[in-house]
């Protein structure tokens, strides 16, 4: 079956988001664009497995994510050591009155383990639901929730944000517990 013009347009429209996600995962512009290119080729070749009417962005993010981890495995992944976290703590100055520099934030984000970083990006920035993020990552909804929670706590720690009033650990705990009970 031929690839429809609509499908091609959907791919074109998704490229900025795919690049942002690839950049968030790989933290490297060249690697990110290679990932996007590979994702587009794969998506094109398996367009028949995409079900019309479902979320094409989630489908594409899934392909990109799988590609990222398979490339990491092939390369014999660059292990993130805990020294990195200490470096970040030293590099980032305590924020004043909750105002953070974007570059400080980027450095802190880079220190997160891959699974936590992708969870926090999918939920907090790409606009996916917990259910969609779980599907993209091939894991349980509860796993995504706990990764987001740990990522947030870690970012607060690295960036030395206190401000319990605004984003204390309770807010997300309540959310996780609430949905588990349902």
């Amino acid at each position: 079956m031929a690839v429809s013009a609509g499908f091609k347009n959907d791919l074109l429209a998704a490229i900025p988001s795919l690049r942002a996600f690839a950049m968030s995962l790989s933290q490297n512009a060249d690697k990110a664009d290679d990932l996007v290119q590979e994702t587009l080729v794969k998506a094109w070749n398996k367009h028949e497995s995409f079900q019309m009417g479902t979320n094409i962005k989630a489908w594409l993010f899934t392909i990109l994510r799988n590609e990222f981890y398979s490339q990491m495995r092939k390369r014999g992944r660059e292990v993130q050591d805990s020294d990195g976290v200490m470096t970040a703590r030293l590099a980032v100055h305590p924020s004043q009155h909750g105002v953070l520099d974007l570059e400080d934030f980027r450095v802190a984000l880079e220190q997160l383990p891959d699974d936590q970083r992708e969870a926090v990006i999918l939920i907090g920035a790409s606009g996916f639901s917990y259910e969609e993020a779980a599907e993209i990552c091939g894991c349980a909804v509860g796993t995504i929730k706990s990764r987001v929670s740990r990522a947030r706590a870690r970012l607060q720690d690295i960036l030395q944000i206190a401000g319990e009033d605004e984003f204390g650990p309770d807010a997300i705990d309540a959310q996780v517990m609430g949905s588990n009970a349902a």
Partner: protein
Amino acid sequence: MNIMTGDMGGRGAKRTRTGGTNALGTNSEIGRKLKQYYDTLVSEEVPERFAELLSQLEKAESNQKKD
């Protein structure tokens, strides 16, 4: 160092005040920065190579059909 900001600390005391259901929402500094970080990436100019790639894939396919 910053043990008290971890998930083990401060539980319960301010439960009613934290209130929000989305800890990464626009009410939190981390939520805001996360969006700002991502939006910066999304709004970057897309290199031509991707549109060219899709056109090539399209062309390759229509050539295949003619054979």
